[in-house]
């Protein structure tokens, strides 16, 4: 038994040395190429120069928006493209120059070659990402110190709780049944297509609160708020006539644990299409060791029914309760982890394409897939294959829908949007991104890549 364990240990050590050797080679190839120098220059420009050049709206919120979304967004975009194209080149270029045949005649498995190259890309990406995030954070700290931002203006990290509402698919099914009972279903659409459209509409559905009217929402917090913590209410809305219409109203926030305790906030003379106000939990009269888990929010439109406009809002998206969710730095770190896992996936995808095709073909396929992933969602949303009998149109919609289906889980997390809005990137989202993008899919691509390399003839015909 001990002998077997020792043998296994020796084999693992040999495997680690092989993978490390391959990774070192790939890292050297990257560090000594001009493309990487160009990429680093672009990264520096994006991280340092871009926020200095682009002007904000003068508010700390605007400054923060630019700093985070421009700096990190630009850096991440550069890293995505560089990672994918570099990955596309790693095997393809070696096969093209007959270099890979020198490695595969040695006692190394194709999987080890794949893994070594992927690890090298991952390490380089992590270093670049760390530099970009470090630079963004340093600039935020600098701006806070230079412009003396108030406590409330500084970047935050808050849990977001949406109102308790039936899921869109349940609402879609109810509407579908109602339409069917009235024989009002469209004749040329399948049940699946109708349900999908209804589900999308339910998610994006606007409800109107007219002057004199009101709406109430219930919130169940996953993370209870304690004594002297702040609860922020956020309501975004549009008006029937214009987004700058004068609106007045009263918001009442009531604790479900202490129904007798509530806070009324009068909202008057606001013309922006977003309301945000903060309530201290001490206002609900709780003791120091107590915490609150449930709230009810009621909005009453107090405008004159004769002259004021009603407000329109999507209950599922526009109404939220924000509660303390840790530090901004931790949120920044979570965002970096999510971005790192997406880069790991792109590296894996590029490497496997690189094992299949020549560099130009692999890079083209990778870019097309990336573009389809980005536009697929919108195409799938706005178009329906049942809208037209045209074959090309139908095929395009189906391809977009297939790409969107295949990539939706990988692209679900939007860390930058959460980061700039001060919303906590939940651990569940980070874990899902790491497991799916950073482990599961790369493993699938690794198996595919290893299999392809084993099947491919790497000696050029002579």
């Amino acid at each position, binding site marked *: 038994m001990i002998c077997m364990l020792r043998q296994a240990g020796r084999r693992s*050590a*040999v*495997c680690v*040395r*092989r993978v*490390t*050797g*391959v990774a*070192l*080679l790939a890292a*050297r*190839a990257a560090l*000594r*190429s001009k493309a990487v120098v160009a990429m680093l220059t672009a990264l520096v420009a994006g991280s340092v120069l871009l926020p200095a050049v682009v002007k904000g709206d003068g508010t700390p919120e605007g400054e923060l928006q630019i700093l985070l979304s421009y700096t990190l967004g630009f850096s991440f975009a550069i890293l995505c493209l560089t990672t994918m194209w570099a990955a596309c080149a790693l095997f393809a270029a070696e096969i093209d*120059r*007959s*270099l890979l*045949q*020198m*490695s*595969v*005649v*040695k*006692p*190394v*498995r194709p999987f080890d070659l794949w893994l070594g190259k992927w690890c090298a890309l991952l390490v380089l990406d992590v270093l670049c990402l760390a530099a970009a995030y470090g630079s963004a954070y340093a600039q935020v700290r600098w701006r806070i110190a230079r412009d003396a931002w108030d406590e409330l203006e500084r970047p935050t990290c808050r849990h977001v709780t949406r109102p308790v509402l039936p899921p869109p698919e349940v609402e879609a099914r109810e509407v579908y049944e109602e339409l069917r009972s009235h024989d009002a279903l469209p004749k040329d659409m399948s049940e699946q297509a109708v349900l999908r459209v209804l589900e999308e509409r339910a998610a994006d559905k606007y409800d109107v609160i007219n002057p004199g009217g009101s709406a109430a929402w219930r919130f169940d917090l996953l993370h209870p708020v304690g004594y002297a913590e702040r609860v922020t209410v956020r309501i975004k809305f549009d008006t029937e006539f214009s987004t700058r219409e004068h609106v007045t109203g009263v918001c009442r926030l009531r604790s479900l644990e202490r129904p007798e305790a509530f806070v009324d906030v009068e909202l008057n003379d606001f013309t922006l299409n977003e309301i945000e106000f903060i309530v201290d939990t001490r206002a609900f009269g709780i003791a120091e060791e107590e915490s609150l888990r449930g709230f009810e929010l009621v909005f009453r439109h107090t405008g004159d029914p004769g002259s004021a406009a009603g407000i329109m809002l999507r209950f599922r998206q526009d109404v939220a309760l924000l509660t303390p969710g840790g530090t901004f730095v931790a949120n920044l770190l979570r965002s970096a982890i999510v971005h790192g896992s997406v880069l790991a996936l792109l590296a894996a995808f590029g490497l496997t394409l690189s094992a299949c095709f020549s560099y130009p073909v692999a890079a083209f396929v990778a870019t097309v897939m990336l573009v389809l992933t980005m536009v697929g969602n919108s195409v799938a949303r706005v178009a329906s294959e049942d809208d037209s009998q045209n074959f090309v149109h139908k095929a395009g919609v189906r391809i977009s829908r297939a790409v969107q289906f295949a990539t939706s889980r990988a692209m679900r997390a939007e860390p930058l949007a959460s980061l700039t809005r001060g919303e906590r990137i939940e651990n569940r989202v980070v874990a899902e991104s790491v497991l799916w993008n950073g482990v599961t899919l790369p493993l699938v691509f690794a198996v595919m890549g290893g299999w392809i390399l*084993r099947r491919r*003839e*790497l*000696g050029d*015909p*002579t």
Partner: protein
Amino acid sequence: MAEENVIETRGLRKVFRDFWRRPTVEAVKDLDMAVARGGVFGLLGPNGSGKSTTIKMLLGLLRPTSGDVRVLGKQPSDTAVKARIGYMPEVSHLHHFLTPRETLMYYASLFGMRRSEAVRRTAELLHMVDLGHAADRAVGSFSKGMARRVGLAQALINAPELLILDEPTSGLDPIGCREVKDLLRTLAAGGVSILMTSHLLADVEDVCDRVAILDCGVLQAEGRIAELLRLPDEVRFVVSGIDEDVAAELRSEIEQRVGRAVRQEFPSMSLEAFFLRTVAQERVGKVFETAPFLRESIGGQVQKGNTGS
């Protein structure tokens, strides 16, 4: 497969196909070949005769269309087999951005060698191929000959049991050629089996024990080199230190005895031998002092100064 054969092919065939899977060329046709353990085996043939294709099938870089290949008793794709083989291709495929030291360290890592062992072997091999002075220069700036030396060094990094060399002396200067040939003879004497191809027939004659000649993918001849080249009807006497009169007498005596005319020649040394004697006599043989691990791996049989072939 016979135990003494390190390479054996049976009915080996390779057909290259185009994108649409239509056959374009049959590079190797029903090749039956065996390479015995020990000694140097030369695979000869004109361009396009199927030598390199055969070698690539032996290394698992190309899959045979049909037939069977056994290398060291196993399939070429077996990693245990690959651990015992050294390979130098016809063209030195090297990463241009790496230095020779990094190149050898990389290939050593693919054999799973410990770092200390890899460092030691790398230093020895660099010294052996006379690249110690350029060990930290990027390979991309090397001449063809220097690149060939790096290629040879990487083929020896694992002290292989079977060495497969595609045109090992191409691109080398006469001294380099001689050093490589001496090294091959020495390795073979120590028990390393070597399969090589070459267009330089003089090199093959110098180094190989057995040869096989391929043409259009078909094996045309195979056997011990001395037996294949022997002219059965002719006898040559080589005598040194006699004057022309004595030579004329001996000639007429032999003519009388055999009843046929006798051709009299004054043998000359080869240009290679003259060049080496004139320019670089002191350098030849130095290589064997420089790679002790190779000497160890072949049972200490490498003898210093075993340079004559």
